[in-house]
């Protein structure tokens, strides 16, 4: 399990990327998918997931539709057009960040080794 701090900055990227690959998804489904993809190493908490989803929706990156299942109401999230663009730019930014981090950490390792 990764620390909360580490995941905090990546949550939006994770959600946007998942939706761009899976079409519409609901909250619980997102938590399960992330858990499955990360081999249980990333477990999204409800307290982090829902505020982020609602924020992305309010910002216009996600659109929603609801489906009634008996007494239950399931809310599905889909990327909007700007959401797709945001998703692509977030992924680019994150890949770049990972590469930079590798260089920085690799650099640290090398200097320690000297």
């Amino acid at each position, binding site marked *: 399990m990764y620390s909360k701090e580490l995941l905090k900055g990546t949550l939006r990227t994770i959600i946007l990327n998942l939706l761009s690959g899976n079409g519409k998804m609901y909250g619980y489904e997102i938590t399960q998918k992330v858990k499955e993809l990360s081999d249980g190493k990333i477990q999204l*908490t*409800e307290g982090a997931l829902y*505020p982020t989803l*609602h*924020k992305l929706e*309010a910002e216009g990156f996600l659109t929603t539709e609801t489906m009634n299942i008996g007494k239950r*109401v399931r*809310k599905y999230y889909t990327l909007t057009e700007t959401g797709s663009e945001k998703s692509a730019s977030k992924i680019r930014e994150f890949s770049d960040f990972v590469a930079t981090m590798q260089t920085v950490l690799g650099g640290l390792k090398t200097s320690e080794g000297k």
Partner: protein
Amino acid sequence: MIELSEKQVNFILKDIRLKGLPKSKLTDELLDHICCGVEKEMGGGLNFKEAYQKTIVNFGPNGLIKTHQESKSATEKIALKKKTKTFGSMVAASLVFLVLAVNAKGKAEISPISKDRIKTHYSIENKFLYQILPNSPVFAIDAGRIINISRKKNGFYAVELETTNDKKLIYNLVSDLFVMNGSRVQRGEVIGKAGVNSNIHSSEEFNFTFEIKD
């Protein structure tokens, strides 16, 4: 895959409402989330009550209320930001308009002689001929530098002002001078007086001329 009965869903709904969640779309969404969690745990072998307890515990202490409040405030914050942004744009647009209006007004009003001092005036292309009241102040209609002052035989001066945008303004028949050769002047500054000793009763006599040369 286990599916909760209506009775079980009602039990959960009643319990989360007792825990403090209001009647809202967000609560509906969280209800479905909890139901999914309970179904998953029941699929793993727990009974309904155990599965429900485990799912609620996963939210953390006061997790349900916190999740509800944070999701609600996230939406409200964005809505407020959008409103502020719209209001801000309106204020900015109004300011730009105001600046443009003031600017346009300022530009339109600058004339070498105040309108209330002019009896008559004519213009031929870029040359303006005035019949003005005695001792009328003469204004620089643009900022620049005085590049030439020449005294004519009749005792009046011709003043040449080179503006910052490379135009030459020639003021002729100026009497009192408030500038010297080489003086820098601001737009609207008084450079001298004109209209002295002239016979303003004669409709043919002009006592001040102004010319713009590009």
